[in-house]
């Protein structure tokens, strides 16, 4: 037969020795390995009763931040969606009405903001693209569910509440943290600061 590549090798068919033909020694050897694992440390943990320690830069479920005064930071600019390699983010914007200044920072806001957690690969590019410091990946693990629809997270699951803020400072370097809190920059001023 014609050789297709030069990598094929001739297989030597060797006769089995007496020990190998007896079979039992090999089976006992295998059982011993299995038995020894019973006394070794377990590789798994009982999640969710137990949780593993996560790295400081772990990227888990997203959060849409509010500013100090409690206004939503997201302005639906669409940069996260265009940066997303998995195309997991969709949004629809709306215009802020008079009197809603304490709810939304800019004159435009995200009416609908959805992240499909089944599509998301947790790469963090949305966080990098965000010019308003609105979206962050946190150290929370996305809970599992029985239907696909439940894995599309809307604003109800993504936006942090005023009472329970999500801490994202652990992942930031001191310089970045400084840039994100310095009141000199426009993006750190709340509507209360602007009133002054």
């Amino acid at each position, binding site marked *: 037969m014609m050789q297709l590549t030069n990598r094929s090798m001739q297989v030597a068919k060797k006769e089995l020795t007496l020990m190998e033909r007896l079979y039992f020694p090999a089976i006992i050897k295998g059982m011993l390995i299995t038995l020894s694992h019973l006394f070794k440390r377990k590789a798994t943990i009982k999640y969710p009763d137990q949780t593993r320690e996560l790295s400081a830069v772990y990227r888990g479920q997203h959060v849409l931040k509010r500013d100090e005064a409690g206004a939503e930071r997201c*302005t*639906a*600019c*669409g*940069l996260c*969606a*265009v940066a997303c390699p998995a*195309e997991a983010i969709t949004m629809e*914007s*709306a*215009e802020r009405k008079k009197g809603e200044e304490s709810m939304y920072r*800019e*004159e*435009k806001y995200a009416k609908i903001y959805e992240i499909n957690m089944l599509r998301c690969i947790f790469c963090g590019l949305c966080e990098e693209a965000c*010019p*308003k410091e609105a979206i962050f990946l946190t150290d929370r693990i996305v809970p599992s569910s029985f239907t696909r629809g439940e894995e599309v997270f809307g604003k109800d699951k993504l936006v942090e509440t005023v009472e329970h803020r999500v801490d994202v400072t652990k992942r930031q370097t001191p310089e970045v943290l400084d840039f994100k809190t310095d009141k000199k920059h*426009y993006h750190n001023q709340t509507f209360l600061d602007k009133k002054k």
Partner: protein
Amino acid sequence: MPKVTIDGVTIEVPNGTTILEAARMIGPEVAPPTMCYYSKLKTSGGYCRTCLVKVSQGSEKDPRPMPKPVASCRTQVMDGMVVENNTSQEIQEARAGVVEFLLVNHPLDCPVCDQAGECHLQDLGYEHGKSETRFEFPRREFERKDIGDKIQLHMNRCILCYRCVKTADQVTDCRVHGVMNRGEVAEISTYIEKSIDNDFSGNVIDVCPVGALTDKTFRFQSRVWFTKPVDAHRDCDKCCGKVRLWYKGNEVLRVTARKDQWGEVESYDGKTGWICNTCRFDKKTTADWTIDGPSKISRHSVISANHYNSLKALKSTLDRQKDALPHGEKVTLGHGALDPNNESK
């Protein structure tokens, strides 16, 4: 016919051509950017200084260089002129300075602005600007104004290029808006908020290089890069009827005139393709239009991020691969890859 050399490329141009037009004849790699100059509008240009170039040899007869950078949109070529644009470090620095001046009062609200993604000032800022401003005073602020029920004016974003004023003068039969006041407090305004209700008033949206004049019917509807541009036409008794439709799904979100590679409204047989307000604001269903095909968008533009041209590109790549294969082996696309409905996943 005078011969002019721009960035090392020599071209022969008709008498009376400006340096900018000569550079555009050579191509986009040497053409200086413009903010106020608009080739379709007479007497436009000369305000923004973005198109500054260095003339290192005035002409054949008088080879002395010009003493300082000149605005290429207003300077005519001479025989034997040598011009430096992108090759001159001095010009790049001067242009960065001009951008800084243009941005002195321009708000950083690109995430909110509907023009983002097709904004000339944004492009210019990315190419030449600095990331920080040195301006310590508050930016000037104006209230948002409605000019008629379809056009919105954000005076904060205006760079006073006068394009919309010239459009109203030259395309419509009467102008009701203009630049009021002078210097620091100059602003585009109408006489006592009078609405512009001319049939061709919508064209001021197309000529505005920034997001100062925007389409109210498109306000906050979508980001530009989530919409798909499609060229279409219809029989219109008022205008040429050749437009660009911006689709999101099956919905026409916006209708604009077609733009050429310089961001200007395209010409057909020497006539500029301005479109009327009926085409722009009132015909927003696919049934109103005959589709000509997808618009060509530069692959460097963020608008192409919606992978609109990928199908065509895929096909041409496959054809090229087919030619390259030795025995004419057949390359087939995956199932349904050429089905137009398959485009958006």
